[in-house]
């Protein structure tokens, strides 16, 4: 199943065209998307480093999750809203962009990692939350989160480059990975 027809339809909607062609709205949305990194990824990094026992060792993990999770969720919501708007402005090119696809796949893994942590070792946080060095499963979740979000940030930035755009003529692998269809750009 291809989402290309949906993207083609989306690209023809008035809102998409208006946002795409806007002088200030698109840059403002993108700036908000980038600066929200400080809030969302910044707070996640602090939690991940605590799970690895690398910072705030005297502060119980529960304290950090209780107090910082609301900020992380707010940051994530802002990220998703601005991210959806960015996609809405440029649907076809984004859909056929290898870095966009890599980012979406990595996002799923980051979500699974967070879910596994939250419904796994985090449930027993009262047993280990005060330890300087949390148990292996918690440290693994922290390390995985750092790696996955780094990949998401970097691949997100790379979407802006046109190296692998379908209309430039690509190798068979890129054509497959980006889902290039002749004549569609």
């Amino acid at each position: 199943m291809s989402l290309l027809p949906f993207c083609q339809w989306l690209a023809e909607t008035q809102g998409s065209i208006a946002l795409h062609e806007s002088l200030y709205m698109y840059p403002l949305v993108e700036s908000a998307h980038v600066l929200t990194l400080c809030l969302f990824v910044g707070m996640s990094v602090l939690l991940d480093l605590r799970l690895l026992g690398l910072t705030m060792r005297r502060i119980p993990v529960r304290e950090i999750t209780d107090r910082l999770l609301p900020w992380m969720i707010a940051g994530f919501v802002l990220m998703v809203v601005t991210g959806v708007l960015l996609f809405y402005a440029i649907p076809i090119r984004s859909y056929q962009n290898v870095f966009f696809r890599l980012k979406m796949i990595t996002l799923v893994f980051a979500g699974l990692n967070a879910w596994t942590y939250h419904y796994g070792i985090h449930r027993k946080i009262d047993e280990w939350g005060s330890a300087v060095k949390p148990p292996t499963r918690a440290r693994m979740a922290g390390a995985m989160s750092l790696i996955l979000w780094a990949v998401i940030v970097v691949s997100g930035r790379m979407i802006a480059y046109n190296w692998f755009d379908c209309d430039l003529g690509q190798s068979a692998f890129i054509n497959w990975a980006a889902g290039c269809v002749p004549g569609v750009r």
Partner: protein
Amino acid sequence: MFDYFHAIEFSAAGQVLKNSPWAFAVTESVHLLALSVIGGALLAVDLRMLGLGLRRQKIPELASEMQPILVASLIVMLLSGAVLFTSEAVKCYYSYPFWVKMSSLALAILFTFTVRRKVTRAEDGRISPIGYRTVALVSLALWFAVGAAGRWIGFSG
């Protein structure tokens, strides 16, 4: 001043960076990753001074935990920023957002390592709640200006 910027961009290092298709993108990625980290280190303490976030922690303790993260990420930001600048110094010279960013960056660094440092290190009760709030808001405003103007360099020209 312009001659100086021109010389940087057309130096051997500037040309190597300019002619590499990946160098700018990779350096910018590093710049963005460090942005995420410095954002967390600044926000944790500024939010705390506003009575939000990790508010059960003592400000001096939290600030000293965040200090190495702040300094390390700032160094990465400055180094990667210098590389980005070297590859497009002439564009920066003509970029209004670039000068806004550099001015607010100078102020932000100055403020962070003088006033903010002194206030976050002060013992309990020495600083009034309004004092903490003011310092936090000034810090947030200055660093926000740096980030927003920085993003805008890429949109102009």
